[in-house]
C-alpha cells in the first residue's frame, strides 16, 4: 500500500483526532449548534459554519458505501467509503478481512492500525 511515511500534517485543527487515535479512541467532529457530525474534522461546521464544534467519540460502527480492490498492488488492498453510524461517510481501508468477502452494505467496525512508518490510521474490518 502506498502509505506515506510520517508526513501526515497534524496541525492543531486536527491534532486531537490523531492523539486520541494513538490511544485507541476514534473521534469525529460534531456541531453543538446544528447537531450534525461531519467528516473530515474541521474547526467550523461545514453545514452551518458554527465554530462551536466538539470532538465526539464515535461508535466505530458503520457500513460499506463503496469500495475497490487494487488488484495490481502487491499485496492487493481494499479502499472504501464507510458510512458511520453517526452519519458521515469517510474514506478508509478495509483490513484484516477476506478481500473477496467485501460488499457494499456490509457492516464494519473500526480497526485502528499502526503503519510501518509509524502513522496510526482509522481503518475498518468486516464486522
Amino acid at each position, binding site marked *: 500500500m502506498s502509505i506515506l511515511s510520517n508526513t501526515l*500534517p497534524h496541525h492543531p485543527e486536527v491534532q486531537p483526532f490523531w492523539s486520541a487515535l494513538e490511544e485507541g479512541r476514534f473521534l469525529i467532529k460534531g456541531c453543538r449548534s446544528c447537531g450534525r457530525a461531519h*467528516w473530515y474534522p*474541521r474547526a467550523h461546521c461545514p453545514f452551518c459554519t458554527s465554530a462551536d464544534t466538539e470532538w465526539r467519540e464515535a461508535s466505530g460502527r458503520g457500513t460499506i458505501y463503496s469500495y475497490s*480492490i*487494487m*488488484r*495490481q498492488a502487491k499485496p492487493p488492498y481494499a479502499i472504501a467509503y464507510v458510512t458511520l453510524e453517526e452519519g458521515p461517510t469517510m474514506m478508509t*481501508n478495509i483490513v484484516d478481512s477476506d478481500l473477496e468477502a467485501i460488499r457494499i*452494505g456490509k457492516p464494519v467496525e473500526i480497526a485502528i492500525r499502526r*503503519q510501518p512508518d509509524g502513522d496510526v490510521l482509522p481503518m475498518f474490518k468486516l464486522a
Partner: protein
Amino acid sequence: MSINGQAYIVGAYEHPTRKAPDKSLAQLHAEVAFGALADAGLSKDDIDGYFCGGDAPGTGPLSLVEYMNLKVRHADSTNVGGSSYILHVNHAAQAIAAGKCNIALITLAGRPRSESQQKGAPQRVDNPVQPDFPWEQPFGMTTLNAYAMCAMRHMHQFGTTPEQLAWVKVAASHHAQHNPNAMLRDVVTVEDVANSPVIADPLRRLDCCVISDGGGAVIVTRPEIARSLKRPLVKVRGAAEAIKHLAGGDVDLTYSGGARSGALAFEEAKLTPADIKYVSVYDSFTITVIIQLEDLGFCKKGEGGRFVADGNLISGVGKLPFNTDGGGLCNNHPNHRGGMTKIIEAVRQLRGEAHPAVQVANCDLAMAHGTGGLLGTRHGSASLILERE
C-alpha cells in the same frame, strides 16, 4: 448577462504527437498555440487574452506568456484539472462580452509519457497542506480506485453491468480506427474489455484511458472578428461550471457536478439534450462517460449503462455519437487532461471537418463536457454548448 452568441471559437489545433521526448513542455504549448492561430488565420500579436490550466509551467500564465512573447491584457489560470479548458472557454466568452479582451488563446500541453509516468496508477501529486490530504492519501487513494468506487456504487445502486461499461470503450475504439494519430486504433469488443486484467475493481485495463504526451489549443473571439475570418462559424450558445465534493461527509458517488453545470448550460443556450447532435464527454474511464451522460440529461439517472449499450454512442450507428476522435480511451489524454481535445473534436464536428467515417450528418449543435479532478472525491465540471452558424 448571458454569453449566448457573445463569442465564437475560430481556431482549434490538436498536436499530432503522442510521445514527445525531444520537446519541452513550453515548446508544446507554443506549437499548439501557433497551430490554432494558423487555423484561425490570426497572428500572435492579435492575442490579447491568455488562458491556461495547471499543466502550464511557472506561476499561472506568466512564464508561457513570456515564452510565446504575447502581449495580453487579460489572463486566467483557473485550474480545475482536466476540464479546465472547457471552463476557460466560458471565462473567455465572459471576458470578451465584458470587453476585457478580443482574442483569447487557451492552451494545454503535457508529456507524461516522456516523463516516464507510464504506469496506470500514478500517485496523486497532491499537497500535504490540502485539508483533505491526511484523510485520503494514507489509504492508498489513486485516480484509479477513486473512479472505481464510483463505478462500484453505480453498479450496486442501478444494476449497471461490466458489459455496459465496456460498450463505452467499444464505441471509442470504433471511432479511433479512423484517426491516424490515435494511440489505440484497434477495434475492440465487449469480450476484449472483459478479458483485460482487473486494475481496480470493477475497472479493467480497457476501462481506463491512455497516457499520452501532446496538447491542444483553441482561440475564442467576439462575433465581429469571427465573421471577418475565413473559418466556419462556431458560436458559443451556453456554458457553465460547477464544483462537486464530499460535502462534509454527505457523500454520493452516483452523480457529478455535471448535473448542475449541464442544466445551467442548457438553460443559457435555450436548448435541451434532445437538440444535441454530437457530444464530446470526458472519458477518463468508461464509468465517467455513463455518469456524465446521465447528469447532462441524455438519459435518466441510473439508466446510463443501458443507454450506452449496443453501440448507441457509435457515430452512424447509435443515437448519440460521442468522442469521434477516439477520446481519451483510445486517442490521447495529454497531461492526464482530456478537456481540450473534447472542445477540439466538437469544433471539428460542427465545421464538418471530422473524419468522413465518423462525421455526424448536419451537425449543427454539439456539446463538450468534462470532469476535472476526481469523480470519487472533488472535481470541477464544465459544460459547453456550441452551434454551427
